[in-house]
């Protein structure tokens, strides 16, 4: 399992290079043929070792490599860095936080004015993102510009860690999906399919759109990571998903209504395998499945997600049993469509 390594790599939307290189190295080591396109998607061609393999399913699996983050927008005279958000990062998790900047990984912190210096009404409001800045300890602007530049991508500096059966780290959305795809790619199947590690999902599913056009698949399954809101003060109907109840199947989100036959097949595979599963009870947010489903003349597509608490934060939490069960459902799904189509 490569979840720890994948979680700790920086890969903000538009700057997925380090994640891509890591995955490419694995594919090379396993002798899996791969290539890339101009936007940065990585295609792994899983070819059958069985001579009589059908290989006709033309199945596309996809998981996005990118994570939400920040981008340096200006360097102040004082040497502090201002930033833009890249994707839907949860602003409430930005203060009191270490970050890494640029591909060299320059370390910085996002601080907050000391509580002692704040007026009471200031404390009562959320910290606006346009008032925050990154401190790298530079003496002034010139000093800062020696090691960073406007346009540098910024990601959380956070260790991934397994404790008490759960896994904690940044960027689990969607390195958990990438790690699951890598697990699948190490197995043998009686047919061929293509696994795509996509880019720029967090800023509008842009990589998947290109990838689906290029592959023109007959069927697609997206491996994702989604909100688990099984928390205090949240009613059960609002939980979206719950940790430990198995991978979540999407009924609909803002980008797709899951193709009924894909959904039926996912449920059938889980039931036959005795694998727990749940439904994602929330209709908001978009996924790569939406972009893929509208490629060419349309592609039947579905989504299977890891439930994850504190999504888009530096300390997201998922349950490793859910992750393993996601791998098993995807494995069963591939075997099922290779054997009998959709």
């Amino acid at each position, binding site marked *: 399992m490569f979840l720890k390594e994948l979680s700790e790599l920086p890969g903000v939307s538009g700057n997925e290079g380090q994640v891509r290189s890591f995955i490419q190295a694995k594919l090379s080591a396993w002798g899996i043929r791969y290539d890339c396109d101009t936007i940065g998607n990585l295609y792994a061609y899983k070819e059958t070792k069985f001579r009589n393999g059908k290989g006709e399913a033309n199945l596309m699996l996809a998981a996005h490599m990118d994570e939400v983050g920040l981008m340096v927008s200006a360097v*102040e005279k*004082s040497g*502090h860095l201002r930033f833009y958000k890249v994707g839907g990062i*949860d602003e*409430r*998790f930005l*203060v*009191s*936080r*270490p970050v890494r900047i640029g591909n060299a990984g*320059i*370390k910085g*912190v*996002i*601080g*907050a*004015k*000391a*509580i*002692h*210096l*704040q007026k009471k009404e200031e*404390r*009562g*409001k*959320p*910290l606006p993102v346009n*008032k925050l*800045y990154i*401190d*790298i*300890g*530079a*003496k002034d602007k010139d*000093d800062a510009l020696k*090691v960073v530049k406007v346009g540098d991508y910024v990601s959380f*500096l956070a*260790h991934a860690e397994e*404790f*008490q*059966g*759960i896994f*904690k780290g940044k960027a689990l959305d969607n390195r958990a999906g990438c790690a699951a795809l890598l697990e699948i790619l190490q197995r043998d199947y009686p047919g061929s399919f293509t696994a795509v590690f996509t880019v720029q999902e967090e800023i509008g599913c842009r990589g998947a759109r290109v990838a689906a056009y290029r592959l023109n698949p007959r069927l697609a399954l997206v491996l994702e990571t989604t*909100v688990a*809101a099984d*928390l*205090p*003060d*949240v009613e059960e109907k*609002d939980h979206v998903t719950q940790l430990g109840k198995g991978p979540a199947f999407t009924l609909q989100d803002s980008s797709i209504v899951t193709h009924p036959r894909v959904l039926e097949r996912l449920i059938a595979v889980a039931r036959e395998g005795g694998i727990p599963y749940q439904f994602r009870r*929330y209709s*908001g947010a978009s996924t790569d499945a939406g972009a893929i489903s509208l490629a060419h003349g349309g592609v039947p597509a579905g989504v299977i997600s890891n439930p994850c*608490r*504190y*999504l888009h*934060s*530096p*300390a997201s*939490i998922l*349950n490793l049993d859910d992750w393993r069960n996601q791998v098993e459902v995807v494995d069963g799904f591939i075997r099922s469509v290779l054997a009998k189509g959709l």
Partner: protein
Amino acid sequence: MSEEHWEKKELENFLKEISEAHGVSGYEDLVAGPIERAFAKYVDETRRDNLGNLIFYKKGKRDTAPRLMFCAHMDEIGLIVTFVEKKGFLRFNALGGFDVRTLPGQEVKIYGKEIYSGVIGQLPSHLRKGEQKEKAPEIKDLFIDTGLPEEVVRDRIDIGAVVALQREFIPLRHRCRAGKAFDDRAGVALLWQCACELSRMDHEAHVYLVATVQEEVGIRGAMVSTYGLTPDLGVAVDVCHGDIPGAAEHEVSPLGKGPVITSGPNIHPRLAERLMAVGKDYGIPFEQDISPGPTGTDARAIQVSRDGIPTALLSVPLRYMHTSVESLDLDDLKGGGRLLAFFAAGADRSFVEGLACF
């Protein structure tokens, strides 16, 4: 590697070690160990008083020599478990003054029957309604997620378990470093530097270096240590606000320009003057600030102990105080330690006697 360089690295390593250690107010034991080990080679005697203050004694020339007390608090702000929710989520109160907006998403260690990892959670963004979006969270809105099943939490983590923030020391550019609990482990590191310098100096005075407890919950440790030691004078070593965008210039001090010497009613004017004179005489840069009332430091308690103790305050400029990414410049620690050591070496009987009827 030059001796100078090695020494600086040693100071940095000590700061890293005690910054990463946990010791919230009232529960300072875990950080007391490494502090005691680091000071041992430079002092003649070590003891802890009833409240937990760690007192290092450096012997003076004779019994009648002045007795100086320098103190810095070793406690850090933290949390304490107050309630176990269904599914095992923990509710908590603060030990010390947090900006609650800095807590969500922070990683913590919970001191139950063993030490457990946890993450501070809050309502997911998409479930916030109307005015919730305009309001900062309150402590009652937050909880700790350990990932443990409820029955295990109930068995292993009691109400009253203390919780400390978890943060690795972060080297920034040049001599700038970030981490948690620099308030006031930076002060403790400055005292250590002072002990190190003093070990090579000839000094008449008896010097007591004290790592105090419970500053963050009401400046309690220094009250007791001052009463117990009855020094002729006391210097509190703490942190002050470093320069950050958005703060008025008069509220903050620049990083890397030396330690800050405070003046005001909480401070004996002769002591502040002497500290500044020492800085000038030995070429140690320093900054000044003023505090118009009792300071929020150990100095507040020292001054009114027994029949009154002449008191001074030496501070390290610190950005983002009470967050987990407090930032400082190592040279301010080094300079502060040297300044305090030269001050101690120059404090004789006549200086101390001159502090009355000034």
